[in-house]
């Protein structure tokens, strides 16, 4: 009995709520995509500002589609889908961030100097 009550109380699971969620997700995604496009097309701001803005817009759209299209928020507890998603994002962060960090620091490892000179150079540059 209590299980049935719990199921009934999940209002967003009904189909009307789902229809609204698809429409909201679609409109928000269109809005975010076109905004990012216009920012780049019209060069609104410096390169750094543009990159930060469109990266932010992509992340927001990622969340919008996860929740409004893939219904991540409707998952009942325990939220294993959310857990796997979180671990995926950790792995992706290490993989992409780590690759870029290593590959754009390669010049430190390709200086024709003795180890002592490299240590001196690294100290002068403030570590990494």
């Amino acid at each position, binding site marked *: 009995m209590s299980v049935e009550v719990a199921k009934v109380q999940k209002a967003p699971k009904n*189909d009307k709520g789902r229809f609204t969620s698809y429409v909201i997700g679609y409109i928000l995604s269109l809005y975010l*995509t076109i905004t990012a496009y216009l920012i*780049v097309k019209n060069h609104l701001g410096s390169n750094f500002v543009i990159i930060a803005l469109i990266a932010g817009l*992509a992340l927001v759209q990622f969340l919008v589609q996860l929740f409004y*299209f893939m219904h991540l928020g409707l998952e009942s507890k325990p939220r294993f889908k959310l857990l796997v*998603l979180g671990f995926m994002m950790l792995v992706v962060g290490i*993989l992409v961030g780590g690759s*870029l960090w290593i590959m754009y620091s390669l010049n430190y490892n390709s200086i024709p100097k003795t180890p002592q000179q490299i240590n001196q150079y690294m100290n002068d540059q403030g570590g990494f």
Partner: protein
Amino acid sequence: MSEAESVAAQTKKLDPNSIEESRTVFGFWVYLMTDCVLFASLFATFAVLRNNTNGGLPGSEIFSLPYVLTETIILLTSSFTCGIGMLAARRGDRAKVMFWFAVTFLLGLAFLIMELTEFTHLAHSGNSWTRSGFLSSYFTLVGTHGLHITVGLTWMLVIFSKVSRKGVTESNLRKLTLLSLFWHFLDIIWIFIFTVVYLLGVIPR
């Protein structure tokens, strides 16, 4: 046979919420997350190689942003129609499922044709995948996404024929649920391709 049992038998016929919470769907979700890691490695490769044009043209010279925006909107719309098709599937409405998934299929096909047109155009203008590290990583990343789209379209055809023969059975509803997740996932990957490859690619340095 009590009344409660017959009611249970009727509701058991189509219970979209319990399918959505089933282990099958969770397993598919885990697959999607590992597929994200595959794409992440390709994104990392692209991000490392994107300036290595080997004397060739950079992204800002070879990409047409309005063309890619059209592709993006087509794929986004197909993700939306796929969702509307899923609503029909939850009600067990065979005709509407067929209609909305046909629309989704045609939009997906239009996207794929546009992508292949762009690829052939690039290859014919001397910017094929053998030209530079930048173009190799570009074709691998975007091509892998296109391959996923191709698989998704084939899968859609298979389910389409199943639904047309047997209607929205529990088994077909489960398959449609997995397919719709896959399709939304490909749209999410495309957001990042659109942002990282095309939008970042055309910003002049």
